């Protein structure tokens, strides 16, 4: 993949994350903060389909943007074919892992009431 394509993804995920995280933070402010952290209220959020989709998108965009940023810092720090390949694949794997783990939480929480 050309670096310009990777950077376009980096910019797009940045702008998307900005909007989505903004929505996520606004949701914490629709009721008093402490109340919004109560188990029942949090589960109710996850069972709201549009909001779950927002959370999933945040997971994907922030993971891609964050781990690509880390990849950039690491390949600027050290160079070499093995190092760069290793860093790239490790960052991809870490991003997939965190997305998978977060998706598991979203799926279980959104089905919690139904169960």
């Amino acid at each position, binding site marked *: 993949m*050309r670096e310009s394509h990777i950077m376009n993804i980096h910019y797009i995920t940045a702008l998307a994350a900005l909007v989505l995280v903004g929505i996520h933070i606004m949701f914490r402010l629709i009721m008093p903060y402490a109340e919004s952290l109560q188990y029942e209220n949090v589960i109710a959020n996850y069972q709201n389909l549009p909001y779950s989709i927002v959370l999933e998108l945040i997971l994907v965009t922030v993971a891609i943007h964050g781990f690509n940023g880390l990849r950039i810092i690491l390949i600027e720090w050290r160079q070499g074919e093995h190092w760069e390949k290793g860093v790239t694949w490790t960052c991809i794997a870490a991003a997939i892992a965190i997305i998978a783990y977060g998706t598991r939480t979203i799926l279980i929480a959104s089905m919690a009431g139904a169960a």
Partner: protein
Amino acid sequence: MKTIKLRVFRYIPGTDVRPRYDTFEVPAERWTTVLDALLHAKAYNDHSIAIRYSCRMSSCGSCGMMINGVPKLACDTKVSELNNDTITCEPMANFPVIRDLATDFTRFFQHHKDMKPYLVNEDVETGVDAETREFLQKPKQVEEFLQFSYCIKCGLCYSACPTVATDKKFPGPQALAQMYRYLADSRDQASDERLKIVDDRHGVWRCHFAGSCSKVCPKGVDPALGIQLLRGYMMGFSKKEKSIAKLYKPEK
């Protein structure tokens, strides 16, 4: 007249085990430059100080060094403007040291060569019978690249850049600004080729607009501007198509 302390980095790779700093007491007037101070120390204290200099008027770019931790031209830096009675002179960062304050520019020049620093134009006739004389370029078209052509290759920007500090493959602000210089020149036809060269894992994308290069440039080249304008082409913020300058053919 006052006296200042001049701390000079001394190191001969291959001979000295580790670098050391020699301190010299040097007289300084209001107009004394760091280069004057170094040459005074070299003339009266230690003839063996290795230092590069030539024009003494920030035109040649030879005397670049770290002065109190910041890359500057020694001839362009007055002792009085440093507001410090102790001046530390070290070789420019990110350049291998040849000896004392003299550094090796091989990699720096190679990065510059990698940018194809010449006009590429297939329409130029060569040969004694060539009828075309010159390119027709408006003053506005010249201003698009003129400031970047003022680069004296002193290396201060390369020394200041945080990416160059760790990334050996990064071309550096000077080379990338020169790439923009040729890209913006209406006489050049190789835009696509040029953009492909810098679209690399260690190319233009590793610049993060820290702006240190423009901060230290002594000639107003503003390499950071050139690099962001170059990137603008690749991000789609600027149009890649440009009208190529016509060649003037005098009427017979």
